[in-house]
């Protein structure tokens, strides 16, 4: 019972933390660029404001446009319940493994891209087309990174992977593990629409991907989508940190262990947020047709990761 409560608590915690994470990246980036920047809690204010505004829907749009935000939000929250944040393995571990996580996120992307096409504007279609291109090309890397992790841990279930890595800490420094981390890091950048793949703070038609798709959204719909997007970022951060560097994750449900886990999680998320912020200030955005090359690099890294874990097996 505690397990189930913890599972739900974990998801609520992620929901609460997610906007702050996005805000932290923005704030730190502003500081690095010599601007004062909005405080890290600005996204909470944005969400509150958006939830209070009325919604304007294009007259060309169908029910799918109004339904999609709920699908995107629900699938992202569902994924949050499957990802180990502060404790592992939890009872929901048997409901979905890493493959289920990946395909649930793809379900959200699928609806987001359809919603981009629905109002019939050129921007929406452009965003949808680019988003699906990037998502499709990122897919093999994700699958191979899963493969590498699963071979090492003997399971595709996230809880088991965390448990196994904790039990064999030496595995963390083997080349397969490190290469897998690098591959998944690149994919994380592509999937969550960060630089150098997509620029989350631009509305320039030549470069935008994610923002182009959601251009027609407003009010509570936009709030749900923005919230889901920052939640997705948090999920990828949690996956990167807890699958590859699982220290701190509680394996018992004692309050002490959970407290440590909570602190560890916050520290890891903050560290990754700062890394992303530094990267975004140092790197220029790639041209869209150079993105496949970047993802190609990540694919090769993932393939090397799997091959080396085969040879070391």
């Amino acid at each position, binding site marked *: 019972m505690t397990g189930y409560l913890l599972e739900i608590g974990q998801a609520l915690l992620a929901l609460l933390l997610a906007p702050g994470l996005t805000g932290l990246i923005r704030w730190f980036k502003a500081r690095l660029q010599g601007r004062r920047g909005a405080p890290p809690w600005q996204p909470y204010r944005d969400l509150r404001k958006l939830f209070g505004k009325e919604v304007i829907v294009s007259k060309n749009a169908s029910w799918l446009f109004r339904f999609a935000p709920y699908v995107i939000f629900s699938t992202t929250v569902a994924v949050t319940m499957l990802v180990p944040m502060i404790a592992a393995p939890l009872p929901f571990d048997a409901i979905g493994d890493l493959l289920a996580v990946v395909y649930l996120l793809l379900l959200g992307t699928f609806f987001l891209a*359809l919603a981009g096409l629905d109002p019939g504007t050129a921007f929406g279609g452009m965003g949808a087309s680019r988003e699906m291109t990037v998502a499709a090309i990122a897919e093999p890397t994700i699958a191979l990174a899963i493969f590498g992790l699963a071979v090492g841990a003997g399971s595709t279930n996230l809880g088991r992977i965390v448990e196994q890595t904790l039990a064999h800490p030496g595995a963390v420094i083997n080349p397969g593990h490190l290469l897998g981390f690098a591959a998944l890091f690149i994919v994380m950048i592509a999937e969550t629409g960060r630089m150098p793949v997509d620029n989350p703070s631009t509305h320039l038609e030549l470069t935008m991907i994610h923002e182009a798709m959601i251009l027609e959204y407003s009010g509570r719909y936009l709030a749900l989508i923005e919230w889901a997007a920052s939640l997705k970022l948090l999920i990828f951060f949690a996956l990167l940190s807890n699958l590859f560097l699982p220290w701190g994750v509680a394996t018992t449900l004692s309050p002490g262990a959970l407290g440590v886990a909570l602190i560890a999680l916050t520290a890891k998320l903050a560290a990754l947020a700062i890394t992303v912020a530094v990267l975004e200030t140092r790197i220029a955005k790639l041209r869209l*047709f150079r993105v496949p090359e970047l993802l190609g690099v990540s694919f090769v890294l993932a393939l090397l990761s799997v091959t080396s874990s085969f040879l070391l097996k």
Partner: protein
Amino acid sequence: MMALLFIVMVSAYAAGAFGALLIGRGAAGRGAAAIGAAVGSGAALALGCTAVASGQTLALTTTRILPTAGCMVRLDGLGAFFLIIIGLLGLAVASYGFSYSATYEGRYSLRMLGAMLNVALLSLSIQVIADNALTFLIAWEAMSLSAYWMVLTEHDEPDTVRAAVWYIAMTHAGFAALIGMFLLMSGGDPTASFAGMRANAATLSATGRNAIFLLALFGFGTKAGIIPLHVWLPMAHPVAPSHVSALLSGVVIKMGVYGLVRVVLDLLGGGPTWWGGIVLGAGAVSALLGVLYALMEHDLKKLLAYHSVENIGIILIGLGAGMVFQSYGLTTLAALGFIGGLYHTINHAAFKALLFLGAGSVLHATRTRNMEEMGGLIKRMPVTALCFLIGAAAISALPPLNGFASEWIVFQSLLGGYNIPKPEVAVMMPIAVGMLALTSGLAAACFVKAFGVTFLAMPRSHEAENAHEAPFLMRAGMVLLAVACVALGLAPFVVVPALGRIVAELSGMPGIQAQFTLGLSLSSANGFGRMSPMLIGAGVLLLLAFVPLVMLALRVNWKRRTGESWGCGRIGQTPRMEYTATAFAEPLRRVFAELYRPTRELTIDFHPESKYFVQSIEYRSEITPWFEKYVYAPCIWFVRLLAAVMRRMQSGSLPLYLVYVVFALLLLLLSARC
């Protein structure tokens, strides 16, 4: 009970065929064909389910029923599984076809269409329960010819005739390979039973077994549409009437899979590693190239036909991985691969037929297959749109629908690849994983395009603007298949144990228990991965209901206003400003330019006064058809050459032909003596 169902099935199909032939046109003729097909399919479905559920087999000595001596039928688990597929699709197709073929009234022959639909279903049903080579081959040829006839329904279109010629030529090349294969396997006796072949298989030489395998791969591969034997498929499936396309893509190409499983896994009992490697490689290449070519199509039905090539590839990845594992004695993993492949077979049948029926409804309403002339249909055809959306999500392997369940199992079997002792073989598995993942990602992109451009946004043509929802019976056929997609996805804990028993029945797969389920959760061998589509589905649905409730409780602003799409300040929006299917696929065309080698033609007419005023732009782009150009064109050239040589024999003089007859007779007599 089972014998009774069998008799009902055969007689209903036969009655349907004769009824359609006798009555011909009109609602009565279409009704006779539809009722015959529906009753027969219902009986086939019941028969298949009974056999799978009870584990019983049904053997009939048909010498007592039919005047043709030497026919044998025996229904076992594998046959029953395919009988379920035939029955399920037959029901949907019969209901749909009744309304759909009404548009052909007075233009094309409904007599032949109705009769051939029943003949095709009958021959399919007989084929999966055939127990010797003769019965199998007769049913195979009957199926091929009836399909040919149905493809030719719209016989006055040049495209149709061309497609039908390709189809009949390819299918007969395959048929010749199959005859050779059966003769090799049975030692020259076409009436030898499958049981005899099974016993005989171990005594064959390695060369003989390899030859049988390669012939089977060629023969069944042409039917299944494995790349590079696929060229006829994207031509023939789109030009057939849509309910026939559903049957062709859903069931007929699956007979290639059935044949391959029956011959290679059952009769031969598996083989060396390279057999599995070839099947796995062919599967991975078919899957990836199939979806890449599908992306470039904007003919809705042709796009779906290329996706059939892709999904046959996924099925073969599962079967091929299973064969590789089997050759290393990893029977549990092998069973997982076979189960994944067979599961994807029934799933693909359900969602591909659903998508073809949906495309048929769109074609019925707009009279075009060109996606660039559609749009906005979700408002005019809500049921069709919802059904098509379910099919699109299922084929993109999105949870909790059926495509996800089977692809998950195929992935799980490939992930077991590290158990293979030889690293050079084991490394095939991660590459297959990468190709499969890329395939499913691209499939999702392709179906965003297909659904988005066809059903969403503003109508792009007058026809799309005045589209109408499909009639009741057509909707019924689609809804049946949509329900099947959801049910097959949510209940792998019913399907997988049944498939486990079927796989365990195959010879060469001894002593495998169906150990892949744990209650609601689907668990792969040794608990390597666990997942429950039903609970995932329930969770997402709960959240979908819960999120608006929480928002209501928190007093979120619930007002909604309808306005114009935002367009950077321009006034008014026309459909010409929308993103087109070609534009949607353009980034991927650039990414995979090495494969497509697109040729581009851009003609811009400027205003004579100034080049800043463009009068018209014409853009034409085509991708290189590699296989047609470099594989088939030389073949056709060679056949033409041979035909020119052979023509010299045809002098037209009667005495010369009599001489030929005498020589042929002498040769026959001589060969019979020795």
